[in-house]
């Protein structure tokens, strides 16, 4: 189909869809007046039931932890898929085309300023990942922040260090370990005779880093997985540019 014809057709039918969508939402409760009950029941009971102060993470890692297990495996699968698609085929011979010459040169001052920044990023990432049950944050966000640290190395042209960190086999193992340990936490509660993913650990004092039982544990597992996932994806995309090796045609 020609592009103009396609767009014209789309404007008609997409327009109908847009109108239907808007028309239907007129029947929604007015914006700003959520009626419940699900969220309200959780909000009222979360501190008492789970000794967690962040209701969002309590839902993610406890009330609806099984959803998050699924989501974590989507992440895991997507990363597997990316690695598989962009892998070196065994029959491909590589050849050196040289590294990219036109990368940005950063001044020495900027480079030296990067190191403290890197440290701050790592500490911040750990903080966010480990306080999920108390304040906004948790494994997903903390993991992404942690994963960004090596990219700072790359930006300040320490590509060797970047490569050593991100291409390490440990990263790949961490990815699988993060995924499997979440499932194993679920199975552990099964072994104890409780339903899958029951919060079986002592709940501790509200406000403590080690409170809320398995919530913190799951959050940590997710943190490991997300960090590893983003590192692997980043390295996979950058591999050719860093090594300067492309497969022969």
């Amino acid at each position: 189909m020609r592009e103009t014809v396609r767009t014209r057709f789309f404007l008609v039918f997409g327009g109908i869809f847009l109108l239907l969508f808007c028309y239907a939402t007129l029947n929604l409760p007015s914006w700003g007046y959520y009626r419940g009950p699900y969220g309200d029941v959780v909000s009222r009971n979360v501190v008492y039931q789970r000794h967690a102060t962040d209701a969002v993470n309590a839902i993610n890692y406890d009330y609806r932890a099984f959803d998050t297990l699924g989501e974590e495996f989507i992440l895991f699968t997507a990363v597997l898929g990316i690695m598989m698609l962009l892998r070196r085929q065994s029959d491909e011979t590589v050849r050196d085309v040289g590294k990219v010459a036109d990368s940005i040169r950063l001044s020495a001052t900027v480079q030296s300023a990067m190191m403290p920044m890197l440290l701050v990023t790592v500490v911040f990432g750990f903080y966010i990942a480990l306080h999920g049950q108390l304040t906004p944050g948790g494994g997903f966000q903390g993991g992404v922040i942690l994963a960004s640290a090596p990219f700072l190395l790359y930006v300040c042209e320490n590509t060797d260090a970047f490569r050593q960190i991100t291409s390490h086999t440990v990263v790949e193992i961490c990815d699988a370990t993060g995924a499997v340990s979440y499932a194993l936490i679920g199975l552990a509660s099964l072994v104890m005779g409780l339903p899958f993913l029951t919060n079986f650990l002592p709940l501790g004092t509200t406000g403590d880093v080690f409170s809320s039982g398995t919530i913190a544990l799951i959050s940590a597992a997710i943190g490991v997985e997300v960090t590893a996932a983003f590192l692997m994806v980043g390295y996979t995309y950058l591999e050719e540019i860093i090594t300067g090796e492309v497969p022969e045609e």
Partner: protein
Amino acid sequence: MSTPYALTPLPVAIPMVGAALIAGLRKWLSRRLADSLGILFAAATLMVSSALLAASIHSPGVYWFGNWFPRGSVVLGIGFVAEPVGVGLAVLAATLTLLSLVSSWRLIDSGANYFQPLMLIFLAGMCGFSLTVDIFNLFVFFELMSTAAFALCGLKTAEPAPLQGSFNFAVTNTIAAFLVLTGIGLLYAITGALNMAQIGLAINTRHDSLVLFAFTLLTCGFLIKAAVVPFHLWLPDAHAVAPTPVCVLFSGLMVQLGLFAIARLRFVVFAQTFANHEVQLRSIFLLLSALTVLVGGLMCYAEHHLKRMLAFSTICHSGIMLFAIALGGPLAFAAMLIYLLAHAFIKAGLFLTTGILLHRLRAIGERSLFAKGKTLRWTAALWFLGSFGLAAAPFFLTAAGEAGISHAAEQTGNSWISWLCFVGGALTSAAVLRVGMHIFFGWGSEPITDQTAEVGELPETAEEDQRIFWYQYAPAAISILIPILLVAFAGWMHMVEDASVSFTQQAATLHLIYSGRSMQVGGVNWMAALQDSGLRGLFAWALGFVLACTSVFRVSLTRRLRIGAFLESGFSPLRAMQSGHPGDYVLWLTIGLASFGASALMLLRS
């Protein structure tokens, strides 16, 4: 917690653990070890889900993750229901995965051991999808299943076509996921619930534009997965490029799970919504399914790429199953389940046979395979047996399903449906027969071909070993024989009957979810309807045979009798739809969405 239901999360958990294990140890595992682990975990999943099936037939149960029982009517956590229909689908998923993993032992290029973990995650996704009664959890497993499928589809990265096919697949199915998520959001806004039973209770008979639009979004999202016209365009592309063991799962179960989700939504969430609009709703769905059967059947006959041909046959049969959903009621639903089961195994058998051909003869196009399979007697036998199954011949389980659908159609005064089923069966079996006559007998002159007939020709197995191993034959033979054996020992159909009655009654599901116990539903008996298939399937096969002959022997026929050859050239508008361009696919999707939404709002509201 009583013991058998403690197994409920395992069909999801076991393959997940297996996948992570194999993926983590990927670099150190030999091919053989990775394959064995994959088979081991799939077999374990099959065992636990079978045990669960046995328990759930005895008495269905409900499983609350994290020990979050409902508080009054508010459901706090995520629930799985262990009722025979969903668990049965999980068993089917595990069986098909096991069969395809066995058939790909050592042979299929596993892409450095990425293949096995992805297959296991795919299995986990399908199991979770069929067990859950939480609507957001349904979305999560929909995404999990899709993501694994996208990756598996692009396994053969050596040529551009697989990447294009999987890109189209990924784009359309990701849009499907967002449609579903938007629908979930709208329902959550008015009910404040994510459990299907609770949502069903809350919306009750409400059928304003909002509920209807949410229904449109959810249904269209799953219709995309179910490859119903005009949402079907991604399916042939995905099948053409995916490795054959993956096609087994795509055609055997993934597509039909879309229909299953629609059924679950219709019988649990929207059970009361259309109380006064049954007829209108039925006509919308009947129109879609009739279109699907015709387009699928005609395009199936017009294809010359073996996998694409079988993919269009899946579309056609998906239309037949959608008839059952359109008709509604326990009889039609039971017929759909039986048809689904039979179709899954027949399609699996045909795809596995195609895999053998691709492995042995290193080609996939009808013309390039012409007369090359004369020595492959067993492969030929399986292939032709499969054609009887597609036509719903009386000794195949498909016949029972089709008979049930026809019976339900007559009850609602739509007996034309059985004729469309007949046409669909005839066209798809004709295509399979034509290909079989060309490849295995070398009859007639050189086959007609088309542009896409050689896409993905690159064999998926290594060059050096072209022998056919027993573990390639065995899964194919088992798959073809199961639907025959299931007819011979038909006692199990009573269970489908009972399961379908409680599945289609909202009250039974509500009772199960809120009390954890099953509800006694009134005894029914329409076993006769399922077994009264008659000889129609044989006639369909015979018609297919004649049609195939008019194609194969076209040169020795007068111009007017070359019906097969005429159908084979295809209809240019239908072919033009199949452009391989993601923009076109999204456009067709929008057209379908807007038309469905507009007709739902116009017909179902008043």
